[in-house]
């Protein structure tokens, strides 16, 4: 072993000791789980809750489920309507989800057209008997109380389709249909306002500042703005 190698070895040993000592002075990464509840991320997929008042027994969830772990029984009831013909209505008899099979893909929640299924972040429902992992409708209904309110909208995000459609409808109603091309303009403008302005411009300007010569700027920028505007 040469002297240089020995020196290298010594620094390596010292660095190893330094790393462990530094780690010891820092806070441990341990989460004290059963004592301290974990801080789950938003939209955590813990358990599926059923809002059965919204369920129309359309069976979409059961059919789309990749594991076929949703069990639905129902029967039809005839509803007499005064002064009209009798209607038929689906009544839910059983709604069960087997969480021993469920792979938490969330497709049932995505496809439900009537917002009857929701994600709940509760995850402590382990059982000693696998059969007990099939949650029936009353238990699924109980999970509904643990469903958090939806998270707030991202202020930088695009407005929802519904908002854009409502703005369009308001424009149509307010303008009486007299403006030119009423179908396209308002929606476009709303999108433009929400996305283009904050997202693109500052970055553009910063890039401009970094690359271009300062002498060019005053002349260029108004021209650029003029070309952008009429869009």
């Amino acid at each position, binding site marked *: *072993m040469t002297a240089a190698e020995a020196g290298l070895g010594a620094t390596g*040993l010292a660095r*190893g*000791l330094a*790393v*462990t*000592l530094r*780690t*010891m002075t*820092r806070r*441990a*990464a*341990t989460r*004290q789980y059963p004592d301290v509840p974990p801080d789950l991320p938003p939209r955590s997929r813990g358990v599926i809750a059923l809002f059965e008042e919204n369920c129309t027994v359309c069976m979409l969830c059961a059919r789309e489920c990749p594991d076929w772990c949703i069990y639905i029984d129902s029967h039809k009831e005839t509803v007499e309507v005064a002064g009209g013909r009798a209607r038929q209505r689906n009544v839910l008899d059983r709604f069960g989800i087997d969480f021993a099979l469920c792979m938490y893909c969330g497709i049932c929640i995505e496809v439900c057209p009537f917002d009857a299924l929701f994600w709940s972040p509760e995850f402590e429902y382990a059982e000693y008997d696998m059969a007990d992992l099939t949650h029936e409708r009353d238990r699924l209904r109980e999970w509904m109380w643990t469903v958090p309110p939806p998270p707030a909208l991202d202020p930088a995000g695009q407005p929802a389709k519904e908002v854009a459609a409502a703005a369009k409808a308001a424009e149509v109603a307010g303008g009486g249909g007299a403006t030119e091309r009423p179908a396209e303009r308002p929606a476009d403008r709303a999108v433009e306002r929400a996305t283009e302005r904050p997202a693109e411009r500052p970055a553009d300007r910063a890039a401009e500042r970094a690359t271009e010569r300062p002498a060019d700027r005053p002349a260029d920028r108004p021209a650029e703005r003029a070309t952008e505007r009429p869009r």
Partner: protein
Amino acid sequence: MSDAVEIGAKAVSVLVAFLLLPLLVGQLEHKAMAHMQSRVGPMYAGGFHGWAQLLADGVKFVQKEAVTPVATDGPVYRLAPAVALLPYLLALVVIPLGPGVVAASLDVGLLFALAIAGIGVVGMLMAAWASANKYSLLGGLRGAAQLLAYELPLVLAAVSPAMAAGTLSLTGIIEAWRPWWLLWQAPAMVVFFVAGLAELRRPPFDMPVADSELVFGYLTEYSGLRFALFLLAEYAGIVVIAALTAVLFLGGWQGPFADQLGPVWTLAKVFALSFVVIWVRVAFPRLREDQLLRLAWLVLVPVALGQLVLTGVVAVAIA
């Protein structure tokens, strides 16, 4: 009559120290190692940060069945934990805690401590051979090679402060100790501490137990209380090596207000050195068998011999 009382009190206090200090070192290892790995270690036993974890472990080990495989060499197998453990108890007897606070102040205390600590090795070899297990035997042979290699630098390094102080009495060495010896005896201290670590088969010198390749080396067949005694022997060994290093090289009880705080200084030095033992365990990977022997014969022995020359020259120059 009063002699008997004094001897009894000393024996009891040595026994208490022998049972208490390894537990404290073990608890320190649990917590320090955990925090060095960004964990928190035991938190439940005893209520406050798992302070009673090792007591709980002891209770658990006592309750477990002590399995004795059919092929074992019965008496040797059963005797091995005691042979591994008792030498460290006896070594503690001669280690001075403070000025005048020592169970037995032998004139050849250093010789006694080194000789008696060497017997612990025999316990390991007994365990390895009597277990009738190939892993145990491999571990025992590795241990034998390692202890042959490291006993020499250990003793050579321990001779240096004895030469400097001109006595083999541990109390005498502490009384002759001066702070500048820290620099003078530094190479010997490093050699003694490293060789001591190897003697204890502590990581990074844990080739004989190497749990990832030899199951648990010579401890493979042990369970229940006998296994616990081997573990206790390991921690008692840490205490003894740390105490010997503190006494030989760090001045034992010496420090500010040594007359009143002597034992506190000794214990502080022992625990600081025990912490280093744990720290080294966490930081470094296990040495390979050839690296292990290279380090002993090509680095530690020459350094220890050089230190002896240096000590001799300086001692003569002073005198």
